[in-house]
């Protein structure tokens, strides 16, 4: 397994399945009264967030602490980047302090790859521009696998026949890209539900332009965050019109089956894409997504930092 997690593409299907298996171990740890194990004692994880984030940063920090790693938080607003230090110098400075992993969120697509080339430290992509958000995809897969009790592991199992609708702003969404890719790797059928103005220019997904067309034929309804900026960019005429065509309204909520999982990566725009109280939807797994975020991020940290090469330890490692 690679020492970095940059995208679902690079992780691949086997890596994805392995992460889900390891997440089961972490979920068991998190069910205990004292959810902490000594696995990553002595390791230091540095969160480097160039964009705002609540859940991802806290989730990574919690995950690292539950594995007994030390954590450092770097926020751009209080850093020497404001004095004109370059990104490369900043990264190399932190690396020189003896860090084992960078968790990076950056507004520019590809930033984690660039940072990975400057340093030999493990790099975990916590979201880069419109491009990728692999740990979100992992937690989404883990949530669906757990909620539907599908036996997916490195030994087999799949989402064959699972119908997924991803609804909203696909073009600007790294979540849509990574999560769609992960669903397809595991065999699910993904349909994008989006206005033409919010679709990427090149893609090979099936697309419908109105939520009503698919709402009665899905098993997973994945709502994406509709950002207010998109209205000022004139990509949507009005948020109310967006809600009318793509939002989960009480009228649509009444039409979805009780088995349908409703997901959202957060933060949620209540009254826009989510025009009902998700707490009243029988299939809402939005809180489980947050909980599972800690499980999968612990798995990612353990797989990347807890793993050594085949030959670094000689001798038999049995009991």
């Amino acid at each position, binding site marked *: *397994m690679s020492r970095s997690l940059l995208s679902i593409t690079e992780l691949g299907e086997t890596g994805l399945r392995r992460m889900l*298996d*390891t997440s*089961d*171990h972490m*979920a*068991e*740890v998190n069910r*205990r009264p*004292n959810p*902490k*194990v*000594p*696995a*990553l004692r002595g*390791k230091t994880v540095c969160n480097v967030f160039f964009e705002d984030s609540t859940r991802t940063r806290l989730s990574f920090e919690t995950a690292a602490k539950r*594995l007994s790693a030390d954590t450092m938080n770097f926020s751009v607003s209080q850093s020497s980047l404001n004095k004109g230090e370059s990104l490369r110098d900043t990264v190399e400075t932190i690396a020189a302090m003896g860090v084992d992993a960078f968790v990076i969120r950056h507004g520019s697509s590809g930033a984690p790859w660039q940072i990975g080339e400057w340093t030999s430290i493990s790099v975990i992509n916590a979201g880069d521009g419109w491009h990728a958000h692999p740990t979100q995809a992992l937690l989404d897969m883990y949530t669906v696998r757990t909620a539907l009790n599908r036996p997916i592991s490195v030994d087999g199992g799949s989402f064959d026949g699972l119908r997924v609708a991803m609804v909203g702003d696909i073009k600007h969404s790294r979540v849509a890209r990574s999560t769609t890719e992960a669903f397809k790797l595991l065999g699910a059928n993904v349909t994008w539900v989006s206005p033409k103005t919010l679709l990427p220019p090149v893609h090979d997904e099936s697309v419908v332009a109105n939520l009503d067309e698919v709402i009665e034929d899905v098993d997973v309804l994945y709502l994406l965050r509709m950002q207010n900026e998109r209205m000022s960019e004139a990509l949507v005429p009005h948020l109310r019109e967006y809600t009318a065509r793509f939002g989960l309204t009480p009228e649509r909520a009444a039409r979805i089956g009780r088995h349908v999982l409703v997901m959202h990566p957060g933060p949620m725009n209540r009254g826009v894409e989510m025009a009902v109280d998700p707490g009243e939807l029988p299939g809402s797994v939005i809180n489980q997504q947050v909980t599972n975020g800690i499980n999968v991020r612990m798995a990612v940290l*353990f*797989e990347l*930092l*807890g*793993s*050594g*090469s*085949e030959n*670094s*330890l000689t*001798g*038999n*490692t*049995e*009991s």
Partner: protein
Amino acid sequence: MNTPSDVGKQVLGPDDVRRAITRMAHEIIERNRGTADLALVGIQTGGVWVVEALAAEMLRIEAAENCGANPIVVGSVDASLYRDDIGMRPVSPGSVSDLTFTVEGVTVVLVDDVLYTGRTVRAAIDAIGDYGRPKAVQLAAIVDRGHRELPIRPDFVGKNLPTSAEESVSVTPNGVTITQGTDT
């Protein structure tokens, strides 16, 4: 894996393994004066089948002696998050730990197929401690092959088997086999 040098030497047959398990079951019951407040916990992954075999045997013995017996409490523990060689070799978690009973105040018999360096047992004892404070922890292994690297000794042993560090030992219900070459 099936080159001639990999073909192992069988040192115990299926009947030997079965008899060893029967004897260990008797010893565990004798030492603990029954099976109350006792739990068998297999170390993932090799100890899991041994726990099942021991529990079945202990239940049979207790039922024969007492005209009916309570089920034997069993569980399993994955020690991979507690190992002291994390970061030094590929990680290979077994199945997820399954400790659904209350550990507090119970005598836990840790069970593994092979006892070797003792490092996995050390990790498993730490793992158990995170679930509660057992009254005592005892250790059972079908094969003790020596080469301990920690002050850990078994309470119940099926067979003491002198080996060299260049050999590996495999234990199944079908017997015990020694193979040249270490496994990782």
